[in-house]
């Protein structure tokens, strides 16, 4: 099934927030933000801005009628700064003007005097001074401290992992429309309508039901609009509340990049111990997460780092420590993978370093330690139906890993300044929100008398194909054509208290809720039809291809007749379905539990070619075997795998966040922050799905697909590293990501560089 919105997308007909016709008299908002990363506000002068052409008013913290607070997990984030600022780009004031241009011209006239305070950008420095957010956490299994004695090889190391800008093509935006009786309708580009609703109500000091949030679609989210959309929506709501006018706020790209949080940079220490055969016996890791200036979702992101710190490997003795460290960067936030990628990067680095020391191929150690049925994760969950070895072996076989190995060696023997490298990257990713209470979803389904169906869920369409998946699931649940299904915008008045669209679980949760809602309606229809047809056993009735069957026998009733007759007989054709993932729980006191409904597995093989003279590289191929369970929609799923991979490759190579010591974000435009383009991605890109596999926990046997493929991208770091080592086998390369051409060249030419430096 094709993406439901695709035709509209290609014709430019699909509407995003600021594409909707503007209400008469709508105002435009522009945000004034802090130019410094830490300081006390001495004075804020708005007078000149207020006098600018077209300006209606300029709002600051004192105009907030409710509570000046938007922190979701921990209340530590103001909507508008009051006495202090904590990061460059922190909102301070909001200009409202008749036009977008006027609003932005007036922002430039705002003056703020700030007494600057010391700036911290390094998470280790923050940790040492005790600036952590939430408690530090430790997961443990076995006894690490005694296990070292049994190890034949122990290696230590450190990783510096860069963050990542989401670069959703549609920047943050919201339009607020005042309705009667003090109600505001917010058209927000958010992954989390309920978070926006709650926060806006808090800021305005009104009940949740006074705020209606409606979301048709997002021009990309990737986690960047899970919590980070809230501030901009609240500002827009505040503006509409204060002026009584419709207001729209659209962040220019540059401002979006400067003001919004990103994937967390991490600094980590690892120690790994193995026996002579390469079996990992012990692993000790410390993660220092650079959380930025406010909690945002950082503690939850950190938790997932801990969950995925052993990736797809079983290690009997493990200690995983993590702390969210408060710095003066914008509050870092969710990004596809949600802390998992950083955890995986460190264990992969540890294995690489051990392999180098033991002079074994890295993939030999990886393969030897893959998870198996009966193993236990450090967080206590027992494993069954593990597909780590199966996906690895299928990848090794179908992509002929041995041949790749041989061809790489031959090429490297034959070439001097050009070297090839390859790497295998297995993944294991847990599906469910790790905060158990979030694993709930609602769906509201109406059947109209012509047989057409309307479905509302709490899930957000952000390109991942949710709407397409829901339509397919609903059609299957009813036994009718997909053409009859319309999936509505996501609206807090139709589905309440929704969890964010995140954790790869949106189709799982909302799909299940849709099935349950449809089930209630079909159950009523069947009871009614059984009665009308004089059948005693309604359970024999099914709807197949829009026909009502009694066992295999046609009843002569089709969907249309069934619905119309039921309506005339006053049968309820609407239902609300509610789903709560069964069996998931986690005890934070013991740091043990069963947090995930299931895990997604896969393995990827990468080949790269390195230009050792210039330090540049090409990704020759990326080949993946991925476990999808029973796919709901292969076209959508392949898109998720390839797209996730592209982001993972970008994170590991080109995408470099650059902050100076004053906390200013330097790579703040697309001219300086580079993401993969059509040339960067390998033309040889193959994705295979495991065949004949099921997943009883997923809707119709499907597995979630949103996040896991991103982590395949980690493999390319090690492929490039392998090629570097082919050129300089003796060099001591770091585990710092991303592997930019600069890092490559400086790594390859440490000696030449030193010569040059000494000559200066």
């Amino acid at each position: 099934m094709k993406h439901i919105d695709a035709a509209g997308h290609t014709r430019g007909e699909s509407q995003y927030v600021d594409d909707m016709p503007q209400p008469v008299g709508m105002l435009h908002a522009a945000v004034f933000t802090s130019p410094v990363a830490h300081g006390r506000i001495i004075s804020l002068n708005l007078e000149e801005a207020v006098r600018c052409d077209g300006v209606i008013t300029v709002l600051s913290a004192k105009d907030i009628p409710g509570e000046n607070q938007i922190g979701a997990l921990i209340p530590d984030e103001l909507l508008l700064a009051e006495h202090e600022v904590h990061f460059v780009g922190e909102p301070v004031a909001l200009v409202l003007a008749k036009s977008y241009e006027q609003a932005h011209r007036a922002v430039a006239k705002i003056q703020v005097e700030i007494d600057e305070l010391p700036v911290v950008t390094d998470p280790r420095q923050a940790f040492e001074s005790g600036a952590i957010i939430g408690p530090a956490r430790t997961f443990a299994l076995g006894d690490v401290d005694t296990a070292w004695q049994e190890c034949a090889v122990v290696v230590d190391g450190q990783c510096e992992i860069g963050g990542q800008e989401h670069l959703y093509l549609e920047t943050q935006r919201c339009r607020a429309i005042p309705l009667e009786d003090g109600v505001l309708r917010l058209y927000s580009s958010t992954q989390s309508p309920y978070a926006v609703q709650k926060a806006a109500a808090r800021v305005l000091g009104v009940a949740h039901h006074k705020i209606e949030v409606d979301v048709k679609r997002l021009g990309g989210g990737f986690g960047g609009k899970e919590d980070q959309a809230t501030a901009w929506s609240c500002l827009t709501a505040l503006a509409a509340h204060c002026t009584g006018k419709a207001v729209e706020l659209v962040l220019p790209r540059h401002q979006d990049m400067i003001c919004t949080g990103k994937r967390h940079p991490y600094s980590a220490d690892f120690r790994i111990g193995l026996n002579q055969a390469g079996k990992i016996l012990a692993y000790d890791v410390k993660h220092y997460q650079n959380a930025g200036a406010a909690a945002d979702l950082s503690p939850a992101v950190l938790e997932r780092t801990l969950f995925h710190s052993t990736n797809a490997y079983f290690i009997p003795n493990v200690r995983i420590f993590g702390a969210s460290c408060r710095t003066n960067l914008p509050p870092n936030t969710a990004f596809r993978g949600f802390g998992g990628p950083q955890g995986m990067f460190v264990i992969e680095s540890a294995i690489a370093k051990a392999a180098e020391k033991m002079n074994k191929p890295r993939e030999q150690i990886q393969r030897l330690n893959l998870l198996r049925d009966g193993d236990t994760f450090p967080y206590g969950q027992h494993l069954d139906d593990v597909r780590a070895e199966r996906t690895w072996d299928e990848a090794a076989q179908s992509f002929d890993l041995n041949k790749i190995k041989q061809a790489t060696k031959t090429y490297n023997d034959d070439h001097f300044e050009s070297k090839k490298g390859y790497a295998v990257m297995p993944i294991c990713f847990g599906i469910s929100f790790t905060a158990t209470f979030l694993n709930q979803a609602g769906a509201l389904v109406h059947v109209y008398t012509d047989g057409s169906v309307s479905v509302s869920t709490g899930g957000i369409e952000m390109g991942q194909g949710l709407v397409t998946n829901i339509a397919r699931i609903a059609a299957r649940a009813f036994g009718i054509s997909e053409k009859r299904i319309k999936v509505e915008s996501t609206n807090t008045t139709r589905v309440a208290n929704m969890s964010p669209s995140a954790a790869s679980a949106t189709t799982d949760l909302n799909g299940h809720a849709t099935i349950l809602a449809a089930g209630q309606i079909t159950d009523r229809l069947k009871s009614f039809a059984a009665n009308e047809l004089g059948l005693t056993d309604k359970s024999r009735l099914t709807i197949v291809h829009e026909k009502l069957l009694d066992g295999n026998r046609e009843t002569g009733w089709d969907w249309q007749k069934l619905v119309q007759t039921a309506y005339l007989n006053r049968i309820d054709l609407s239902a609300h379905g509610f789903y709560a993932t069964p069996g998931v729980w986690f005890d934070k006191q013991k740091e043990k539990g069963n947090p995930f409904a299931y895990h997604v597995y896969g393995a990827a093989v990468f080949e790269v070619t390195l230009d050792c003279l210039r330090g540049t590289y090409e990704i020759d191929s990326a080949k993946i075997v991925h476990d999808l369970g029973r796919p709901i929609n292969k076209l959508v799923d392949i898109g998720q795998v390839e797209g996730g991979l592209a982001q993972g490759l970008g994170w590991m190579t080109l995408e470099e966040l650059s902050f100076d010591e004053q906390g200013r974000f330097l790579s703040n435009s697309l001219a300086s922050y580079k993401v993969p383009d059509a040339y960067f991605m390998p033309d040889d890109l193959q994705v295979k799905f495991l065949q004949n596999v099921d997943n009883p926990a997923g809707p119709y046997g499907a597995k979630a697909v949103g996040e896991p493929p991103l982590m395949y991208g980690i493999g390319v770091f090690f492929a490039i590293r392998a090629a570097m080592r082919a050129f300089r086998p003796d060099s001591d390369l770091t585990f710092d990501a991303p592997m930019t051409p600069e890092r490559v060249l400086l790594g390859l030419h440490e000696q030449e560089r030193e010569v040059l430096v000494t000559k200066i």
Partner: protein
Amino acid sequence: MPAETTFILNHDTISTTESPGTLVLDYLRRKQKLVGTKEGCKEGDCGACVVLVGELTGASVSYKPVTSCLMPLGELHGKHLVTIEALRLDQLTPVQQAIVDEGGSQCGFCTPGIVMSLTGYLLQPAGGLDDAGIKYALGGNLCRCTGYGSLKRAGGQILQEVDAGSAGSGQDRVSNLIAQQVVPDYFSQIPARLRSIPPIQRGNGAAQSAYIIAGGTDLYVQRGGEIPYTEVEILNRRQELRGISVEGEHVRVGALTTFEEFAQNTDIQKIIPRIGEYMMRNASWQIRNRATLGGNIVNASPIGDMTALLLALDTTLTLEDGLKKRNVALRSFFKGYKQLDKTPAEVLTEIMFSVPDSGTRVHFEKVSKRKTLDIASVNSAIRIKTASGKIVRADLSFGGVAPIPLFMQNTCDFLAGKQIEMKTVLAAIDVAHSESAPISDIRGSADYKRLLVRQLLIAHFTTLFPDQLTVKDFYETH
């Protein structure tokens, strides 16, 4: 009251007195309420705002995809502006259908721009279609969702479904694409309609204007917020400033010649055989259709790619202020960071360099974070004349190692008369380091750039003289 700008917007003829410096993207979305064209970055990097601009060339109209976020409205006079709204035919066009079929659209925000780029590729005035061309067309469009796999597959379907190559060129080709419902029927009347638009009077001249706009691809990135509110001189209204001619020993290039026109010119391809390859690294097709050689020089970025190349070619510039005309060597044009030997009234009109003789080779090197469409960390060009193993004359430039695009006079002086051997290159590296002073910035650390000076010098010599020097030589002696 500014002069009216008259153009055809999709089907309709429009006359507007909007400020000529207004961005086409803003005009479309805010004035015309044509919101199918998206704003993604407003600096020409993402391509969500790509539109087609059709221009009369002889009897037909040639269409090019450009980023509407960097184009002044005033430049549209007498042209055909095509937006995604023009492609809402009764059925999906073959381009749209292919994207739908292959799942080439996820969040959809980049999709209109991609449809315009691919449609623009089919509308190229001549030539066949292939996979490489699809990638070429997609080069200026970022998609954060798909990873491009499905878009490349959509490209494959387009190549199967659409027959553009065999239909000849010019208006025949347009007719053929109308028949295949790639573009609407009314495209057939556009040449006649454009001819009926009278030419616009010239602007106020450079002296009276706050901004002089050539391609605008960097100026709008820097000053996009101000330009619409100022008097502007739109140089692209002066057609005489475009074009390339070879007169005997001299190549004369109009200052408004675009990167793409320069790279596609057969004379230039003879003189600089790898120009196409070099150009791919410098900018996307959508930007190459706008960026001008003259703009690259006057913009005076220390890492201007074409400027580096032209420095090595010993280029002479012609400057005119409406009254008088003078020539200045490009090598003495840059006086300091963004400081030029140019009065505010002067406009760069022509770029001239000599045709290299048979003993002379030209090469360009560039290293950037992303290989395509990225700004250089360091770039470098060399023109080198040799005779019997000796360097007769070398002209070497480096970008990204000084406040100006740097002509390395001392290194050139050193190289003259030397043998082509490793010793020469190693010594030249020292000289090059002594006359450059890179700083750490967003394009790389000073250490990295200094190392790149070494690496790119080695790259020049090992690329141009593979029989005398290999990269390996430089590592075995260490």
